[in-house]
């Protein structure tokens, strides 16, 4: 078996699931292509992709063995500009968490550049490829409408207590809970520009499902210290890095 992530807990298994490209992610909701474009806010729905260079076929590129070996992704082939989607994951049992995103993106998506912080996680790609991967990230178990935020800027919220509807704090209130429908609606794009019509993201996942799918260890869920195998591997990495630079044979 591929050693994707150590541990015997459900959290460890979830981390393996997300990171294993062979694992088929649960699709939890339908977001139309047009709505994905609206949420991203990089262009209007139906608008042509902006180009930063001519299509590769029309470019007189020098011979290069790496170019032969690596098939360009669609957006690169077409000359698309590079755009982004950024998520904020609540520490209160959001399904995906920042480093899990980075590790899983790198095994699932080609042609990306991803950056990880405590309170936000960005992924950049050529625009048409970004739209495709964004759809996956929004429709599948990567996303919960209440505990996952889509936020280009003004990101604080991952560590804050939840509001009375179970939603993560967002100073720009991009995702709002509609009490009548019980669904969360996106009323602004990811950088906070108002949308003409809200995008209905759907109902929040219930607490039980969130806890079953989450990739964060917490003592009120699964405690990391109880996942003895995972902790041992982490400690072993520390010891190896420490001694490897000093005396790999005898230690110190």
């Amino acid at each position: 078996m591929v050693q994707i992530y150590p541990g015997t807990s459900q959290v460890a298994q979830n981390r393996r699931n997300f990171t294993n490209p062979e694992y088929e992610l649960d699709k939890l909701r339908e977001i139309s292509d047009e709505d994905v474009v609206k949420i991203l806010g990089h262009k209007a729905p139906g608008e042509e992709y902006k180009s930063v260079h001519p299509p590769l076929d029309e470019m007189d590129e020098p011979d290069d063995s790496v170019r032969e070996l690596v098939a360009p992704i669609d957006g690169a082939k077409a000359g698309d500009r590079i755009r982004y989607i950024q998520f904020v994951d609540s520490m209160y049992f959001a399904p995906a968490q920042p480093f899990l995103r980075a590790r899983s993106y790198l095994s699932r998506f080609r042609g990306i550049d991803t950056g990880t912080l405590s309170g936000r996680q960005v992924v950049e790609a050529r625009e048409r490829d970004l739209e495709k991967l964004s759809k996956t990230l929004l429709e599948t178990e990567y996303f919960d409408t209440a505990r996952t935020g889509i936020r280009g800027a003004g990101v604080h919220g991952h560590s804050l207590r939840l509001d009375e509807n179970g939603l993560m704090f967002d100073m720009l209130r991009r995702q709002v809970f509609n009490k009548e429908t019980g669904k969360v609606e996106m009323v602004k794009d990811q950088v906070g520009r108002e949308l003409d019509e809200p995008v209905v993201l759907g109902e929040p996942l219930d607490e039980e499902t969130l806890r079953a799918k989450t990739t964060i260890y917490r003592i009120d869920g699964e405690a990391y210290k109880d996942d003895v195998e995972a902790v041992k591997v982490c400690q072993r990495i520390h010891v190896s890095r420490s001694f490897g630079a000093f005396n790999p044979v005898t230690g110190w």
Partner: protein
Amino acid sequence: MADKKFLDAMKKKFSEDPTEKTTQFYNMGGWTQSEKKTAFVNEGKEIAKKRGIPMYNPDIGTPLGQRALMSYQLSTTDTFVEGDDLHFINNAAIQQAWDDIRRTVIVGLNTAHNVLEKRLGIEVTPETITNYLETVNHAMPGAAVVQEHMVETDPLVVQDSYVKVFTGDDELADEIDSAFVLDINKEFPEEQAEALKAEVGGAIWQAVRIPSIVGRVCDGGNTSRWSAMQIGMSMISAYNQCAGEGATGDFAYASKHAEVIHMGTYLPVRRARAENELGGVPFGFMADICQASRVSPDDPVKTSLEVVALGAALYDQIWLGSYMSGGVGFTQYATAAYTDNVLDDFTYYGKDYVEDKYGGLTEAPNNMDTVLDVGTEVAFYALEQYEEYPALLETHFGGSQRASVISAAAGCSTAFATGNAQTGLSAWYLAMYLHKEQHSRLGFYGFDLQDQCGAANVFSIRNDEGLPLEMRGPNYPNYAMNVGHQGEYAGIAQAPHAARGDAWAFNPLVKIAFADKNLVFDFSKVREEFAKGALREFEPAGERTAITPAK
């Protein structure tokens, strides 16, 4: 609910119980909930009216105050303040802490005395030394001693400038006018005093303070030059020298180069700073500048965390937060290490664990087993507090804040166990890994990149790859843009020495030079001083009121 040291602060900061997982947002009144920001608005309006250019307006940009704008308790004090009060521009105590370091240089008198006695046949006695000190205390603030018709500085502006001496020779110290002596016996507990005096021996050193305002107008590199010039002139005057004779060159060389200890070393051109700028102050020096070790020798946690506070304010808020980054202070996450008694709670937990497990401090084997044991235990305890108390997680709302505090507690506790800063540092890195895996997040790219590679140079003591922690500093490779770390590293450098009861961490001369009641900032109670600054009760030096129109 257990006796957690941070709970009082949590109860004051938020209306809900600290364990409550939900709260209300968006109905707090925005920035108007803050007294300070409301005052800023009024001040900004006045200024705009006067100068004709718009100024402060918190309605521009992101909407401030969509959640509770919480207060902060200066750890170990009863003082609650607003975050704005801890910005270094708004806090005169933080500024003065830096002023007092930047304007200090330690200069030996030993070379000069040798020249006088062995080359010129002039007798040096306690009386001549006292006479010299009277002279240099006239000259150091910016007065003339050798030539007439010289312009001089107004004493009101430079009243914080003076020179004192210290020596390990009790007899000599007794015979010099006490106004000029840093009395090691008075300032330090007996055992520490004996150790310090043994280290200094019969040598005599000057703790030189140039005026605060000189450091602000010029730079840290000017400290040794200003000092050397005044020392040279005072030597000429006190010992009736010829201003041009060869020996005066030796005095100048000794006081500019041969017998000078700068508080910070010169930085390479890519950082372009002279001596006595914060980037060159080694962690061990910062530990020795802090004086908690002599006033609280039986409390290694307090001793170490006072160093953390000093380092967090100076290295993070001033050096990296502004000098290096061009940013406006990095206040929010630097202050996490010295507010709300959070790091205190985690570190006392670690100390208790070490005492219970190993039968006392510095009793554990100095090896990786201890790092894994203590580092893991303390990291897990700290991480769990954020999970048990949502108010605490909301207080340290950035991962960088949590990472610094968790790892600092793990590092200090391990150093308490082993009595060695290097194993403490190793636990810092271990705690970073554990945190990263438990929460699947750490800080931001620039914050935690060094935490993910730093373990490799903890035990590798080779040039440019590794150093004893006491000798590392903000300019150490990989630490140079390392916000939220350096105050904590300084604390970990202090921790083993605090546990061992050492009189100093790295340099005994630095420790003695700052055991000085005449300093404007009291380095024995850093957090109390910052609190005074936040309350606008701290009286700094180097003010220009004497030379500006009366208001």
